[in-house]
Every structure is written in structure tokens, then in C-alpha cells.
């Protein structure tokens, strides 16, 4: 079957919450993680991988520990509040996830919008910017339509004053073997 170029992305609220909580748990660094779902363009859940810059050993091990799930993309949030674009490493990660059967999506969390949402001043519209593969340059810079399912409940959960701390894979490795890592 020929791989189709994705045009839009649907994101479950559970995935959005993990992405936003991951960013809130590491407010001074870029964060990165994997997206899983039943098929390309449908994001059911997010697996936080690291804060800082992802490296091959971290990503390869994290992917290896996720069993029987389809990886449908990569997410990132820039370190700076007003930075809205994915860095070069996130772009490279998205490209490396492509297979002959699936075009991954790259989701970029908009930090300033997240602050507004958590303060009850905004909605989830454009909270996540989604990108697919650009046909010309092969980079993940082609904007995609991104819809968050059940957006209102996602906002309500984001407004909580004490959001749970999300441990990514690096937190898990640097902590004890029992340090929980958000997996499926």
C-alpha cells in the first residue's frame, strides 16, 4: 500500500495532558517525547523521553521499551517561552521516525499559549502546532490541521494548581529503578 501524506492530526486529551505536564515539569529546558496511536495522524498517547537534547541511546532504548504500539510521531516544546518552532534535533527525530508505511507527525507545544491556558485565559486552539513532511525539502515543516478531542476537559485539567510531576525517561534513568516513567 502506498504511504499517504497526512493532512491533519487528531490528538486525544490524554496525550495533550502528558505533553503539557511534561513541559511544566521541566520549565527551563526543551522537552521531547514519542507519540503513539492506532495509525498515522491519530495521536492517542504521549511518551515523555527527555528534557534537554535527545541522543541516540536514549531514544533507541525508550523506543525499545515500548511494546506493541505504533509510533506515530514526535513531540517537543522549545526551552524559551516565546520560541514557537521545533529545533533542528526535533526535526531530525521526526525524519528518523519515518518508515515505508508511515509518515510521522511532529507536534510543537506553544509555550506562551500553554501559560494562557493554565491561567484560564485561552483555549486549546493552536496550543499544539502540527507538522508533516514537506515534499520539497523533506523537512517536517508542512503545517497540518491539528484537532484536540474533548478540548474543554483538557483545559479544565490543565488549570489545576498542582499538576502531577511527569517523569520522563531521563528522570527515570537518573533516579532509582522504581522512579515511575509514564509509559503505556
Amino acid at each position, binding site marked *: 500500500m502506498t504511504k499517504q501524506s497526512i493532512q491533519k492530526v487528531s490528538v486525544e486529551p490524554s496525550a495533550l495532558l502528558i505533553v503539557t505536564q511534561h513541559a511544566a515539569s521541566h520549565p527551563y529546558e*526543551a522537552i521531547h517525547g514519542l507519540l503513539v496511536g492506532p495509525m498515522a495522524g491519530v495521536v492517542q498517547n504521549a511518551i515523555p523521553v527527555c528534557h*534537554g*537534547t535527545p*541522543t*541516540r*541511546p*536514549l531514544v*533507541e*532504548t525508550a523506543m*525499545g*521499551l515500548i*511494546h506493541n504500539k505504533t509510533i506515530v510521531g514526535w513531540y517537543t516544546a522549545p*526551552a*524559551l517561552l*516565546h*520560541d514557537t518552532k521545533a*529545533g*533542528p*534535533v526535533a526535526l*531530525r527525530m521526526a525524519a528518523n521516525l519515518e518508515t515505508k508505511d508511515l509518515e510521522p507527525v511532529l507536534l510543537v507545544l506553544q509555550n506562551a499559549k500553554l501559560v494562557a491556558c493554565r491561567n484560564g485565559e485561552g483555549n486549546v486552539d493552536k496550543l499544539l502546532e502540527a507538522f508533516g513532511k514537506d515534499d520539497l525539502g523533506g523537512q517536517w515543516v508542512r503545517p497540518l490541521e491539528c484537532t484536540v478531542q474533548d478540548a474543554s476537559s483538557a483545559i479544565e485539567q490543565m488549570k489545576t494548581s498542582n499538576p502531577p510531576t511527569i517523569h520522563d525517561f*531521563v528522570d527515570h*534513568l*537518573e533516579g532509582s*529503578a*522504581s522512579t515511575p*516513567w509514564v*509509559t503505556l
Partner: protein
Amino acid sequence: MDTDADLETLVAQKDHVNVLRYLRVHQLRDPSLAVHHGQAALKQRSLSDVTRLAIYEQVALAALDLQDHTLADECLSKLREMGVEKESVRFRLLLGRCLEASGDTTGASQLYDTLLKENPANSVALKRKYCILKSQVGQEIATVAALNEYLQNNYSDPAAWSEMAKLRMEQGDFAKAIYAWEEVLLSAPTDPFVHVSIAECYTTVGGLDNLEQARKHFCQALELDASYRRAQFGLVVAANAYVEAASNASKKQLVDDFEVQVAKELVKFGAEQAIQAYKGTSMLASVQSLMQEYTEGVK
């Protein structure tokens, strides 16, 4: 002053001055604590002028962390009232920090440039210039240049080299990140985290020579801390990558069969260590399954 007292004891004793000293000496960043104890200490009439000046400076910086610009401005005014000259280098550095916090990065940069004209080796001004650039979107090239300028004057600053390494990694330039991490390693040869950071960069760059270096650094990290799981997994990945690279090597590349055997043994060793580390945890099955894939692959 009880020099052995910990912070909790000093706080309980309401020893405000020594709480502030403790925060400074141990380089702890707790602005709420600093402001609370600083304001309490400043009410004491018995303080010497030197101590009072230091407290105003510390409270000002803590206030900036809490975005309490009013308090920071009050501290600046008090410093001037106590006779600190506005041309004082230390006062201007503090003023620069206040300008940065209020968003006037242009004014702060100009102030630091003036300080650097007076003394090109003013390391605090160089650091602040770097921090201003790092906080701005789209200034990656200038940020690296500013940090390079600092490092030219402070070549043996491991924290700055660590900063350079992370900056390079953010930009995807893992080769230059390796160089910077190697400089950090000169100051911290027994820090397993530094060895792992270098090893992860070497693994990411790839290629037989780099993967061999990666293996060595992961092994060194485990020599220093046998329980370091990040190094255990990293060793498996790097050694496995070496075996794969060796099998895919072109005829022109010389592949040492002994090194390939070593790599295979290191995969098995790393896998055993990782499985052992996860015994009794909920992730054991996943780790066993993954490690089995790697060990089966190198048989």
C-alpha cells in the same frame, strides 16, 4: 556562627544572617527564603555596614527571581543611600541584572559593554551578555559567539564548557559538543555523568571510530558507578551499533575482528547489568525483552 549547622537548623534558630550566608556559600537558589530572612536581618541594628550591603545585594537578586521589581529597586536605592557609588562595578552589575529582569535587555547589554570596555576580562559581564542572548529567540549564532568570547578569557571554567556542550547539542552539532564535553572531563574525570554525556554524543554521531570511543566512555562510567542505568543501556546500544556498523563496513574500512568480539561481549555485559538493576521492579519484563533482542542479535 556555627559553621556546621545545616540550613534547617539555621532557619529554625532564625539566624537570618547565617541563613543568607549558607545560601551564598552553597550556591542554593531559594529566593523566597533569601527575601524572608534578608528582610528580617535588615531590621537588626547590630549589622555592620559590610554585612548590610551584602544583604541588600542578595535580597535584590532574590527579588528579581520572584519578579518583585519594587523590592529590587528599593534595595538599589538603599545601596546608593549607604554610599555605594553609581559608578561602582558591583553596583552596575546589579543594575544590569535589574534591567534584564525588567525586560530592558538593550539597556543591560549596553551597560555590560561599557563594563567590558573598562575591563575586557570582566567575567560576570561576559556571562550576562551570553545569558541575554541565550534568552532571545533566533540568536543561536550570536549566543555561541558570546560564550566563545567568555571561554577565551576563562578557558578552564568547566561550567562554561558544560554550557557550550549543551548549546551545541541543542543545535544538533554533536561533534562540537564532544569537544566541549572533553574539556569538562579534564576538570571532572571521575564524574560518570560526563562520561555518559560524551558517550551518548559519540553514539549519536556514529561511525566505527566514534562508536569505539562511545563504548570506552560508557565502560568508564560503569567503572565509576556500576549501578548507573543510563550507562548500562547506553553501553548496550553503542556496542550493538558498533557490531552493526562493522558488519556493514565497506571493504576499504579496516575492521578489527577482536574489537567486534569485544563489542559483542559488551552488549551481553550491559544487558546483564541492566536486567539485574531492574529485578523486583515493574519494568523488569520490558527490560528483559529488550535486552534479549540485543543479545540475540549479536550471537
